[in-house]
């Protein structure tokens, strides 16, 4: 194998994607070719550099637009629909929802997104003492949880999510085959209900409460009494 044969293979070689036979041939060539060795190092260094590339998180507003029924519309069609709506019914009839309903809708959408993500949790651990510190530096607040997970409601892991316009710490719990997401975020400027408020939307139960400056949303397709049991443990109070 000479340089002209080796060069097209060097990237795949650097990534370990060649067959054992080709790998052995490239290795034999590299043993006597400094410039191809340098090239392999460059490919590895560039792959390492590309791994640094930030991965912008999907904005919650976009995620919610995408998952909202009935269907996605191309941009020109959206404009046409908006114009038609404005002409027919007047601009004052824009879809207005009480704020709590929007919060419930957002909670359900975010829970569904957690379920369908390729990696539902970013830190997979049943150890509360591993999951909680993992959020340090990833969210701008310390999530307060009075519950470490137990045999009834094991902790599955955590991830960073987005709730309306802010970052949320997301704790995932399980109950039999049900998945439960707990979103914890700063409550400022969100109209959160007082006490533990129970709602349901699209087959999911949502419990909302506030504790100090933090807002909590617990979402699952689990039945409400059992979800309340978990909420009581997390809440740590009556």
């Amino acid at each position, binding site marked *: 194998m000479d340089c002209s044969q080796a060069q097209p293979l060097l990237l795949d070689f650097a990534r370990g994607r060649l067959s054992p036979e080709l790998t052995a041939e490239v290795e034999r060539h590299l043993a006597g070719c400094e410039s191809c060795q340098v090239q392999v190092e460059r490919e590895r260094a560039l792959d390492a550099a590309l791994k*640094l590339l930030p991965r912008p998180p999907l904005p919650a507003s*976009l*995620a919610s637009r995408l998952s909202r029924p009935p269907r996605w519309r191309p*941009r020109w069609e959206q404009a046409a629909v908006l114009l038609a709506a404005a002409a027919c019914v007047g601009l004052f009839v824009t879809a207005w929802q009480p704020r709590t309903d929007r919060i419930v809708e957002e909670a359900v959408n975010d829970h569904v997104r957690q379920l*369908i993500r390729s990696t539902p949790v970013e830190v997979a651990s049943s150890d509360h003492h591993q999951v909680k510190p993992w959020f340090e530096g990833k969210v701008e607040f310390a999530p307060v949880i009075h519950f470490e997970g137990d045999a009834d409601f094991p902790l599955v892991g955590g991830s960073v999510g987005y709730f309306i316009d802010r970052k949320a710490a997301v704790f995932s719990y399980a109950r039999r085959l049900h998945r439960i997401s707990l979103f914890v975020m700063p409550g400022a400027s969100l109209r959160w209900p007082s006490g533990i408020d129970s709602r349901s939307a699209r087959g999911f139960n949502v419990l909302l409460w506030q504790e100090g400056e933090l807002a909590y949303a617990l979402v699952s397709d689990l039945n409400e009494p059992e979800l309340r049991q978990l909420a009581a443990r997390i809440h740590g109070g009556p």
Partner: protein
Amino acid sequence: MSFKDDALALADDLYAYACHLSGSRQEAEELVQDAYARALAARRRFAPGSSLKAWMMRILQNAFFDDRRRQARNVIELRPADAPADGDVPRALTAFDVERALAELPPDHRNIILLDMNGLTESEAAELLGVPAGTVKSRLSRARAALRVRLAAYGR
């Protein structure tokens, strides 16, 4: 899972791809939303068993290049005279350097690097770009060389 669920599961990847391809988060949001609208309208044309991710990325890529053509915005290829002809990637690069270097590449170079990063095979990328598989390898190699030049320039 339904087609829509399968497609929604790719939203994170598609948004990140759109951000880096367009260099604008606002444009990325529009591109992703548009791509989903087009994908849903054309869902019957998706061949089951093939890669939905590659298919969605193709739709998004086409929307991006259609927009660029419509805007007739000429992309200036940056080849500063002081950049070395080729070079090693410096060790102390930051995420910002990599993002900036990628953003400075011509869109087709940027695109092929992003497709490769997203794990598309050569044949998937070839189909997506409408070129022979052999061309993907040489194009990727040129794009990576151009990126290396940019990154090397930042390290000096």
